[in-house]
């Protein structure tokens, strides 16, 4: 897939005077020309406020808006009216927490999260817990980073009303046993919120086959522009939820003292939509589909295998979670013994390699792993074997540069 690098203009900038080796794809991805051009064309040809003008240009904007919704729906195997556009995964999760969690949970209920959740799938539930009295219960991974059947049995009980989990953790990179979780949720009568922010760039997410109740992701991690996110919700659930943000476009009728609300999905889309972002997201999905998901998976699996092998071969490196490539998608987190992650990242950066160091918006997992922070390398469709080689070679020098023998 090397040829596609030309589709991504940013990959030819310099990083610290060196060719950029972009390995922070889990934070955000680079955008292909297909996406940049689609957005630009929208603003050059079709820009208007959707749903508001009876004129032709307005109709084109409305069509761009609704066509994008259809493309996202098809991508997730959902129908269009189950797709709500938001600004990012975080807003999608807040929407569910507010309009479902606060509305339908109560004292005595339990909300089950994994301790590996990103703050965006954690802090909103703390608020729900505080307001409703529902209890937050955490799933803890085993020492390979997996959620075991025993752990699921123990935590998902008849009190469980909602389970919110990332399909792939942004630190461990490990896919959770979502089928087991959904099965237990069905028995418990709980709804399942799937945070696909880190899974969807690497695999097809079929919400119907998974039978999850809600799913969320961010466009910017899927090669689309920033400022556009998605919430999928089963129609019957969305139908019974009150609105979250209120204002223009999401209303039925407004009187001085009271209002009625529009049907879903519009009920959840207040104010002028980011149609440019939606068009960009649709273009990104089309682009990925045209590459072919089997190709993407195979390519990324190769990179993952190579990187894990390289990392395990370097002494004084701790990898967090199962180091077998089959279980992993996109990310590997690790630390270099005696070297602070920020120093590791800065030294890699001096070779043009961008990785992330910090708590990665997952402090509870850091506490659980008894580390303060770690380094994360994460791959995208445009990364190459050479990128991985350069990364591994640079990493080999880190301890030496920090004054350690090896």
């Amino acid at each position, binding site marked *: 897939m090397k040829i596609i690098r030309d589709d991504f203009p940013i990959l030819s900038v310099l990083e610290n005077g060196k060719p950029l080796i972009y390995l922070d794809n889990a934070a955000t991805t680079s955008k292909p020309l297909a996406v940049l051009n689609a957005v630009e064309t929208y603003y050059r040809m079709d820009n208007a406020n959707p*749903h508001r003008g009876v004129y032709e240009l*307005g109709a084109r904007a409305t069509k761009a808006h609704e066509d994008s919704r259809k493309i996202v729906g098809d991508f997730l195997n959902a129908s269009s009216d189950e797709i709500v556009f938001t600004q990012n995964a975080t807003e999608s999760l807040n929407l569910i927490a507010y309009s479902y969690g606060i509305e339908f949970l109560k004292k005595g209920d339990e909300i089950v999260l994994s301790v590996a959740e990103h703050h965006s799938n954690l802090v909103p539930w703390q608020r729900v817990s505080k307001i409703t009295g529902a209890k937050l219960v955490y799933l803890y991974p085993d020492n390979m980073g997996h959620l075991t059947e025993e752990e699921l049995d123990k935590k998902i009980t008849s009190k469980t009303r909602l389970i919110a989990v990332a399909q792939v953790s942004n630190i461990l990179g490990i896919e959770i046993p979502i089928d087991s979780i959904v099965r237990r949720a069905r028995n418990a009568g709980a709804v399942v919120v799937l945070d696909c922010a880190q899974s969807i760039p690497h695999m097809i997410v079929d919400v119907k086959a998974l039978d999850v109740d809600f799913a969320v992701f961010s466009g910017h991690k899927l090669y689309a522009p920033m400022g556009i996110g998605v919430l999928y919700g089963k129609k019957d659930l969305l139908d019974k939820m009150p609105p979250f943000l209120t204002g223009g476009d999401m209303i039925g009728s407004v009187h001085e003292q009271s209002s009625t609300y*529009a049907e879903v999905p519009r009920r959840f889309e207040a104010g002028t939509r980011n149609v440019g972002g939606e068009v960009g997201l649709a273009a990104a999905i089309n682009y990925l589909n045209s590459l072919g998901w089997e190709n993407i998976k195979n390519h990324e699996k190769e990179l993952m295998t190579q990187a894990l092998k390289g990392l395990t071969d370097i002494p004084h490196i701790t990898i967090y979670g199962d180091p077998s490539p089959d279980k992993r998608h996109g990310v590997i987190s690790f630390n270099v013994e005696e070297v602070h992650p920020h120093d590791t990242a800065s030294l890699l950066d001096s070779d043009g390699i961008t990785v992330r160091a910090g708590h990665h918006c997952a402090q509870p997992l850091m506490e659980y792993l008894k580390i303060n922070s770690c380094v994360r390398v994460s791959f995208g469709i445009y990364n190459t074997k050479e990128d991985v080689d350069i990364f591994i070679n640079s990493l080999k020098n880190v301890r030496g540069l920090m004054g350690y023998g090896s």
Partner: protein
Amino acid sequence: MDLKALYNQIIVENSRAVHNRHKVEHATAVLEGVNPSCGDDITLELKVSDGIIKDAGFTGTGCAISQASTSMMIDLITGKTVEEAKNFLNLFYGMIKGDITDDDQLEVLDDIVSLKGISHMPGRVKCAVLAWHTLEEALDGKTESKGCSDGEL
């Protein structure tokens, strides 16, 4: 699409056509349909017996397209069977959505075909559809219409 021609030839006449603006005696169904966002508001009255729409009429206000569409629909369905009316309904929806474009297939809709161009004016589709939507609900025995709620046009 020549919008002015559309307005000129069909809508203006029909929107003022008074022959369908009346209440129906011994109506078997009376249903109000509203587009809350633009204020189109019609009340459709039907007299159905032996599966035949014996009489139909409407009252209400709204834009020329909504009023014309209602009047033309009444012209078409009066005297037809409920089955036939439902068939017209599907044809009309197909035409307005742009799914059915074949003129031969649409021929039975008579001068309603003049509304075909509305399929390119998504902002006005609701206006054209209101009457048909209300008809559908009335034939289904609904006593309250949901209207074609679509937020703000």
